[in-house]
């Protein structure tokens, strides 16, 4: 058990320290990094989904006034490592997906660079491609592990036997669409290769982690770590798509090496983000649930079919939440992949839990209706005492309390369970519920330095603020760990010049960096006491040995949604959406609420709007811009509330935090789908829920 910090600054809704700079537009993002006479980089992308580049004619591009260089798969420098095929930029003439980068142009202005990129003539030997995900493909394969290292399949007991003998069963296939992360700030880099000595590379990059990004770039380019600096003070969202460097970062570095001493700027266009910056695989989820008359589960199973790019395997862990969410003696989860000629899919907010809390949470709603049991009560009846998967006790688990408090706040009591019978004017009205879950993670590598400077405490760590509030919340933790007012703490983050920090991913950022800060603060006080001298400093890493391994640690939540469906047109509105979360200690209610409601909105968006439409003839996402890839807008969000329980978890870390960046998106789409069913009686099992899917069956 960890000794929990006494919260004084923690728990206060302090305003963002970087808020004024962001509102005034003075916060510097990667692309805006001041640089003298920067060169601009534009990319040449493959227009076939599979094949081989046979020739590239760069004459017209090079003849354009203002063009500095054109680099192609035939002329690019050879990289030190091509092990990661996604990052092996310009190393092969083979085209593995439409949109793959086959060349780049450097020019005096971005307009000239783009114009020149258009003038590069690429000739292909085009080959047939395969880009269609179907559950009945005969070439689905079993990956060795699923992200980030979970078993691919698990089984306990006999699901088939339980299904055959149960009082009630649900056996349906659910699907989620392809989604693109689409942070507001596109992936962008300003890169400078300093020719002095052996060369020194600086990357001002929009990244979720400067140190992990540097490590990857060093490996790919064959550079020593102390020759590369990555800087990212402000990041306009990432949602996982900036959690690992994508090919644009490598290309920016390569481009900078073409023009030593001159800064090079490369920003992906919104359209390029759809083929180069990762996305969430579509999933096909066969879900089976068996229960007795009281609703106690005797079996729960999910068999997932999803895709990976042929270039680089990414196996989303969609079945993982089913392993631990509810008590059931018979359980099965499997993952099968189709390897396709498509861009590389990767992390997107709550990989695994986000799609994996759709099918099962809708199936439970179906079971509740079949059994005549309230869906809140059904979940409570299947609360496991220990983690069903590992048998470990929970570090803390308050799903039942979230469900009860959410039901109370939402006004769930007395809900008429019948679907499709409530009309207000022309609207069919219904309500739905689903659970949320996200594992509590802490990364192995993070070190903080604390220095006493001119009467204040400076905290240095290469952490990231991707809009989550790290600039504001890390000082709150440091202040409590040092037992000083928060105004006496200054943090310095977002730069590899500071001690190593882990990625802002897996909702682990504050858990990990905060742990390092607390360790450093305790060591600092142990060494220098409460009256340090100017310049006293202490650098300490997160104490991984003290990481509790004896408990299953997760954040939980419950989401409630009211949906209204126009009885004549099928138009869907969500006037109310309420979540209650048990996610450990909340360091800053202001920034925390922003993360919860943002993620819940992203879940609403997944339920009703987002849908990357792949044309299997071209291997191309056709709605590759924000005009056609619809994300929920302000007018789609009604009364949106996030609440949380005052949860104390002594096992997770010294702050008692569980991470809150991702849990809000999990279960949200299921709650919307369940509410739409309750409103209309139409059970839509494929996302997004569209007007014309509802219309034919409306009452």
């Amino acid at each position, binding site marked *: 058990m960890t000794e929990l910090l006494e919260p004084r600054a923690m728990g206060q809704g302090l305003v963002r320290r970087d808020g004024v700079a962001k509102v005034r537009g003075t916060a510097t993002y990667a692309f805006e990094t001041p640089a003298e006479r920067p060169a601009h980089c534009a990319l040449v992308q493959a227009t076939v989904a599979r094949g081989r580049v046979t020739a590239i004619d760069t004459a017209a591009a090079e003849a354009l006034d203002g063009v500095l260089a054109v680099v192609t798969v035939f002329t690019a420098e050879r990289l030190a490592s091509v092990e990661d095929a996604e990052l092996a930029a310009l190393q092969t003439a083979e085209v593995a997906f439409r949109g793959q980068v086959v060349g780049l142009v450097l020019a005096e202005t971005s307009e000239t660079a783009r114009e020149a990129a258009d003038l590069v003539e690429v000739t292909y030997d085009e080959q047939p491609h395969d880009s269609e995900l179907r559950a009945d493909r005969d070439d689905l394969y079993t990956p060795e592990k699923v992200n980030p290292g979970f078993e691919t399949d698990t089984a306990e007991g006999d699901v088939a036997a339980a299904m055959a003998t149960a009082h009630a069963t649900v056996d349906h296939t659910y699907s989620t669409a392809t989604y693109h992360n689409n942070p507001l700030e596109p992936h962008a880099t300003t890169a400078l290769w300093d020719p002095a000595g052996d060369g020194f590379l600086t990357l001002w990059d929009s990244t979720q982690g400067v140190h992990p990004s540097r490590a990857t770039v060093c490996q790919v380019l064959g550079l020593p770590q102390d020759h590369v600096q990555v800087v990212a003070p402000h990041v306009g969202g990432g949602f996982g798509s900036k959690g690992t460097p994508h090919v644009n970062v490598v290309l920016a570095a390569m481009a900078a090496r073409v023009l030593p001493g001159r800064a090079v700027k490369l920003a992906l266009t919104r359209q390029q983000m759809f083929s180069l910056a990762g996305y969430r695989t579509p999933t096909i989820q066969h879900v089976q649930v068996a229960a007795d008359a009281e609703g106690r589960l005797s079996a729960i199973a999910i068999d997932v079919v999803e895709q990976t790019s042929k270039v680089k395997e990414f196996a989303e862990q969609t079945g993982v939440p089913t392993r631990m969410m509810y008590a059931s003696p018979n359980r099965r989860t499997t993952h099968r992949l189709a390897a396709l000629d498509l861009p590389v899919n990767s992390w997107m907010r709550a990989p695994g839990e986000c799609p994996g809390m759709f099918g099962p949470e809708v199936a439970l709603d179906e079971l509740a209706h079949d059994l005549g049991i309230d869906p809140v009560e059904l979940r409570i009846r299947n609360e496991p005492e220990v983690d069903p998967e590992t048998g470990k006790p929970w570090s803390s688990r308050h799903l039942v309390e979230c469900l009860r408090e959410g039901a109370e706040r939402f006004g769930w009591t007395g809900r008429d369970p019948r679907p499709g019978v409530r009309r207000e004017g022309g609207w069919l009205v219904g309500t739905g519920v689903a659970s949320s879950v996200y594992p509590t993670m802490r990364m192995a590598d993070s070190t903080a330095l604390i220095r006493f400077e001119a009467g204040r405490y400076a905290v240095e760590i290469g952490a990231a603020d991707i809009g989550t509030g790290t600039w504001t919340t890390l000082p709150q933790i440091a202040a409590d760990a040092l037992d000083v007012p928060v105004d006496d703490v200054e943090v310095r983050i977002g730069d590899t010049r500071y001690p190593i920090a882990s990625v802002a991913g897996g909702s682990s950022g504050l858990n990990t960096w905060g742990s390092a800060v607390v360790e450093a603060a305790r060591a600092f006080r142990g060494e220098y006491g409460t009256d340090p001298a100017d310049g006293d400093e202490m650098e300490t890493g997160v104490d991984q040995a003290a990481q509790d391994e004896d408990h299953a640690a997760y954040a939980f939540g419950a989401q409630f949604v009211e949906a209204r469906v126009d009885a*004549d047109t099928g138009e869907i509105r969500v006037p109310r959406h309420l979540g209650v979360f048990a996610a450990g200690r909340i360091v800053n209610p202001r920034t925390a609420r922003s993360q919860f409601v943002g993620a819940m909105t992203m879940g609403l968006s997944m339920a009703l709007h987002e849908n990357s439409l792949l044309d299997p003839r071209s291997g191309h996402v056709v709605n590759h811009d924000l*005009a056609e890839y619809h994300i929920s*807008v302000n007018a789609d969000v009604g009364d949106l509330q996030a609440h949380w329980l005052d949860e104390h978890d002594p096992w997770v870390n010294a702050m008692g935090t569980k991470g809150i960046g991702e849990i809000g998106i999990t279960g949200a789409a299921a709650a919307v789908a369940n509410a739409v069913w309750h409103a209309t009686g139409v059970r839509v099992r494929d996302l997004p829920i569209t007007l014309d899917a509802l219309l034919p069956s409306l009452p």
Partner: protein
Amino acid sequence: MLLAAPRFALPETVGEALSALAERPDAVVVAGGTEVMPDLLWRVRTAAGFVSLRRVGALRGTSRDGDELVVGAGTPVAALVDAEAGALAAAARSLGTPLVRTEATIGGNVVSALPYRNMLPALLALDARLELTSDTGRRTVAFDGFTTAPGVTRLGEGELLTAVRLPTRPCFSDYVKIGRRNAQYVATVSAAVVSRNGAVRLAFGNAGPVPLRSDAVDVVATALLDGRAGPDDLRAAVADAVDPPEDTVASAAYRRHALGVLATRLVVRAQVDAGLGS
């Protein structure tokens, strides 16, 4: 270069604009740029040159001419959100975002001529006329029939759309659209109504390749207004008259159905306005 000076004209009067166009017959005329600029950036349109109307002050603003409201073709949509004609105001209010409405012009909406454009059903229902100006003078044509195919109009070579003329005779008018989102979306389908002296005129967006209206529909709509026909009659008439597209947003069947719903809703609103319904 994208905007090399010889290919780019920035006239300040209608006369200069016509001259600029005569010198660059292949140029694209740009007003607010909300369609042209994304097209250029996305490389779905190329242009041999541009004539920008942004500085032609005479094309902006509204005035009265007898019993017509004259809306300069360069008037931004944002200036129409409180227009007296309810259909015009509702179509303007639900177009894009505030930023887009500030830049997009009514003339651009008309000349881009895509069947889902917001303003088009409103103009068709209101029986708008278009003022077309060229070196040889000015002609006025009905908006009905101006669009001949998606993106194609009867605008002649060297001719500019300079104003949209709308009758100011009192009427009830309104506009509705359906989409998947609650704001900032292209109409899956849309409809506009004008009800004047007991006669109803309906017009539809994304109901076919061009903005669409039908005498047969209006006969039934008028009958519905005064109780001689029922909603099902109007829905059937609309279903017969329209030929909506099928795409990834919605099926043709959905659109056909929804157009009937919108038509009925608008006539019911007209009934309420006329004191005929509740």
